[in-house]
């Protein structure tokens, strides 16, 4: 997890999110995998929406997801949040023997 988010000018915060990235990733094993890396796409992600299908999974932002610290999203359920700060990646690890697929969009600057 990043130590702190950079200070933004007030006029920058009034602007809409200029950048976005879509991602679709299916796990291939029982280890953690990166569903999305922000490098080259945007400096920071501030709004995210995704669904998890075919099997449940643990999701983590800016760190490697584990079955103890990750956020459990059951199969065919989703997640949405805005006014957040993601600086590096979104990682996924399946919660059962079934491989999980994550689909979503992230908006940011």
């Amino acid at each position, binding site marked *: 997890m990043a130590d702190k988010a950079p200070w933004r000018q007030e006029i920058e915060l009034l602007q809409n999110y200029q950048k976005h990235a879509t991602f679709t990733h299916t796990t291939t094993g029982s280890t953690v995998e990166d569903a999305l890396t922000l490098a080259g796409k945007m400096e920071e992600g501030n709004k995210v929406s995704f669904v998890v299908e075919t099997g449940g999974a643990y999701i983590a932002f800016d760190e490697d997801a584990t079955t103890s610290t990750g956020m459990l999203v059951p199969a065919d*359920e989703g997640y949405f949040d805005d006014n957040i700060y993601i600086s590096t990646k979104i990682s996924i690890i399946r919660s059962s023997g079934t491989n999980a697929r994550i689909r979503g969009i992230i908006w940011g600057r």
Partner: protein
Amino acid sequence: MKLNDFNKKPTSLNRSLSNKIVINNTASEARYKAEIEELNTQLGHYRRIEAERDKAVSKFNSIEETLKTERFEADKNRELIVELEKEKINLSGMNEQIPALDEDLRTAKGLAAVANSELDIMTKRAVEQSKELSLLKSNLDSINNNYNNLSIEAKEAISRKQSTDADFEAISNKNKKLQSFTDETSKINNRLIEENKTLRDWANYKDVENKELLVQLEELKTIEAKLREWMGNMEIKDSQNSSSKNSLETKVSTQQKVITDMSKTLDDMMKEMAYIAKLNREYKKELIKPTYSSMSAIASQEGFVMPNGKENIRTHNLGNYKPTMLKFKKKEETKNGR
């Protein structure tokens, strides 16, 4: 002010820096100082008690010395009595043989009685002194106990003072850290205030410029109305005073020149207004450009597919926390991921 004069706007701004915020933990410092003073007074009290104990011990030693001397004298007197009794026995044995010794015997008996009475007096004094000594011993024991208790209390007080000093030092360090953090925060705040002021100045400058342009437009409208009025008057005069046409022709030409100048000025103003309108259109065009792509727009432009038409059934969460986890009503999804 015209738009061309915008570059001549002074860039330096005079602002007064706000004072830094300083936090002093005076309440804790005063409390610890009061505790330290109280401990110092307790320490002085214990030292006074220790001096009294030393005095009592020295008095006890002197009394013990006196008692030893008197015991020695009593022993000597007992030995004297024994010798006198021996002598009395010898004298009683010699009484029959030497009647003259009767008188000496009586004298010796008198002396023995005196010695006995003296011995009784000294024995009484010794008993009294031993009683006093036992009383002093008990006093000394109680003083020793008090001294030990006071010593323990003094040690506790010193340890408490040391722990209080350590706490005071920790609080001072914390206070210094808070001060440095406050300084940094005030610096960031000042920088943000300055940037905010710059933006406000820029907005005010633009407002003033707009107001000036509006005033110029109003003036142009007034001039146009006046010119129209003048033209009407001249036409009326022309029709009415056809005889004086020749003489007025010069005046008319002069007025026409004025009108031409005014028209030229008006044209310049209109061109400037057209330029401003064009600039305004450009600004509006930039402002209405879509910069934030919705999910459906991204899906249609990039061929990315997200499940649509799903209805979230988790709409209520505990407290005022906004729901982020989405659970959908069971509905068939036709498309899969790309």
